């Protein structure tokens, strides 16, 4: 049975990964929000500043109309003097472009409205550094030209405040998210470890194990666990009823088979009967019994009947006993059956009797299908993790399409249809390998076939 290898440990727990992903998403969103806020703020503040300046211009126009040019100049100078943080700049020019009033030293000649950098303005008094540029506009008042400017630092200050808020919020979310993520992650990790542990024991055949469900836990993990447990209950029930059926069949068929055998034996001892016929019947009865026993054993193994007594078993002496047992038979058939000496013990966890039967069946299968003059070579190799036993022959081999099917119950290849046997030997091999968490497969050997049995090594 090929078991998927466990995913590598050491990756970030899901919740931490999620919270990191979330904070990244938050950072991207913040950047987008910031960009939008920048654009809107700039637009709105600009609008507001322009409105302010227009309002001022209207007031100044009214002052000129009622008080004349001199009052207008006074007013402008007063306004320029109280301009807070150089946020506002003014200039009044006459028709020739000469400067009459204001806090801009250089005459502004260029057409307005426009954005003009702060260093081109040279406003009277100190120019504060926050102002990078001015939005400038002009309004005709009588024969004069009124130039107004408003610093852009208002927008930047608003945006700075907004940015600071967003960055602080972002950091808070990351820190809180990580702390919460790690905490939740630890808890979830523990629960998932408990679930994995339960699943491992289940796949080892401990069908009574259930996934842990914390008291009062109605979260998704608990709900999944409850569902899995319900399923396991049903599986356990099915396995139990299958076992029961197998036991019933076994018992209810063994007794009549016993009686049949007895009657035939008794009949055989009666004088004047056709002894040959009865011997044939007895032979058939024995065939039925052996097929019956093999089927039942396969069913027991496949049904997960972990009643076998598993202990530490060395495969090396098992292999040599099996080879020993079959060597004379092989020699009589002209087959060279040999075992390469395994260099060391081949320790696995298993049932000695079943493992012996498994290798016996594979070797027997090879001998049965190989013609005279062939070689059947058995070897066992082990490294830290696995033990591989190969039974290789150079006989007729098994066609690629049949290689999977030879392990099915009652499957027989075209060539083997007329050899004796019940078609269960290799099915039993597979069932025995599986109960040991091992695998068995067959490949081509150019020419011939190689059976390969693989187990986890035991130290």
């Amino acid at each position, binding site marked *: 049975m090929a078991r998927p290898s466990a995913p590598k440990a050491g990756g970030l727990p899901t919740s931490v990964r999620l919270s990191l992903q979330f904070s990244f998403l938050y950072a991207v969103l913040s950047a987008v929000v910031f960009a939008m806020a920048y654009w809107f703020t700039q637009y709105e503040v600009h609008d507001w500043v322009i409105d302010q300046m227009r309002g001022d211009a209207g007031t100044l126009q009214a002052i000129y109309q009622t008080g004349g040019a001199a009052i207008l100049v006074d007013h402008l100078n007063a306004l320029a003097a109280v301009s807070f943080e150089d946020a506002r700049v003014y200039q009044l020019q006459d028709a020739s472009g000469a400067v009459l009033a204001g806090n801009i030293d250089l005459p502004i000649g260029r057409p307005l409205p426009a954005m003009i950098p702060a260093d081109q303005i040279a406003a009277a008094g100190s120019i504060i550094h926050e102002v990078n540029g001015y939005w400038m506009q002009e309004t005709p008042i009588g024969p004069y030209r009124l130039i107004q400017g408003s610093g852009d630092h208002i927008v930047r200050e608003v945006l700075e405040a907004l940015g600071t808020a967003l960055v602080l919020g972002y950091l808070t979310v990351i820190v809180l998210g990580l702390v919460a993520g790690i905490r939740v992650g630890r808890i979830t990790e523990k629960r998932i470890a408990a679930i994995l542990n339960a699943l491992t024991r289940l796949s080892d055949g401990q069908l009574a194990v259930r996934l842990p469900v914390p008291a009062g836990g109605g979260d998704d993990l608990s709900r999944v666990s409850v569902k899995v447990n319900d399923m396991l209950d049903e599986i356990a029930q099915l396995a139990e009823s299958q076992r029961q059926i197998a036991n019933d069949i076994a018992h209810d068929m063994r007794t009549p088979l016993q009686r049949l055998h007895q009657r035939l034996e008794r009949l055989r001892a009666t004088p004047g009967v056709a002894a040959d016929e009865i011997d044939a019947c007895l032979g058939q009865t024995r065939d039925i019994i052996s097929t019956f026993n093999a089927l039942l054993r396969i069913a027991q193994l496949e049904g997960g009947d972990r009643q076998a007594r598993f202990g530490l078993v060395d495969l090396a002496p098992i292999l040599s006993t099996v080879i020993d047992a*079959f060597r004379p038979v092989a020699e009589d058939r002209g087959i060279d059956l040999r075992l390469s000496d395994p260099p060391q013990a081949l320790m696995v966890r298993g049932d000695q009797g079943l493992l012996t039967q498994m290798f016996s069946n594979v070797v027997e299968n090879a001998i049965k299908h190989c013609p005279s003059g062939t070689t059947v070579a058995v070897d066992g190799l082990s490294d830290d993790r696995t033990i591989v036993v190969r039974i290789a022959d150079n006989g007729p081999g098994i066609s690629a399409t049949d290689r999977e099917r030879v392990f099915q119950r009652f499957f027989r290849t075209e060539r083997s249809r007329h050899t004796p046997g019940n078609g269960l030997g290799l099915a039993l091999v597979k069932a025995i390998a599986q109960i040991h968490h091992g695998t068995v497969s067959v490949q081509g050997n150019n020419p011939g076939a190689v059976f390969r049995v693989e187990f986890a090594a035991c130290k």
Partner: protein
Amino acid sequence: MRVLVIEDDRETADYVCSSLLALGHLVDHAADGKHGFLQALDNDFDVMVIDRMLPGLDGLTLLRSLRGAGVTTPIMLLSAMDGLKDRVDGLEAGADDYLVKPFAFSELSARLSALARRPPIKTEETHLRVADLDLDLLRHTVCRAGQAIAVQPREFRLLAYLMRHADRVVTRTMLLESVWEFNFDPGTNIVETHISRLRNKIDKPFDRPLIHTVRGAGYSLHG
């Protein structure tokens, strides 16, 4: 020998008892566990046959009770159960041998003889001798009529088993279990082939064969 058969299936009990009688054994029968228990305590048997599933008192409990009561008679457990653990459970409960139904009478008979006349445990058994055949268990040597015969380790084990059970029938499955520790019956004629090899060495060069085939049952070694 005197045999107690505790078996509830009438037909099987009838057949086993009458067949044992026909071989000249004394046979007592009990149809349930309680009667079986009382009979086993009251009389002295050479061997007992107990079915695993009995009404009243099941076979395993009966076995444990008998062993608990100090009964040391060899016991053969018959069973319709052949689970992976059943045999071990039976042997652990105190059975000396375990036979799964359906079985041939010859198998039961051969195994009962082996059980009943099981030699008392000798601490120093170094030689086996049957007729002019000698086997040295310490030196792992075989000789017949003073002539050394080279045998392979497994053949030595096979021969030793046959000699220990001399004059009795040993079946194929008894040999598979004790010589190769095969608790299953491979379809291939492993035992026949090994016996044939052994005969070539032990019997062929000599006038009188020692290994005899018992038709439909197994083999017997005798002079």
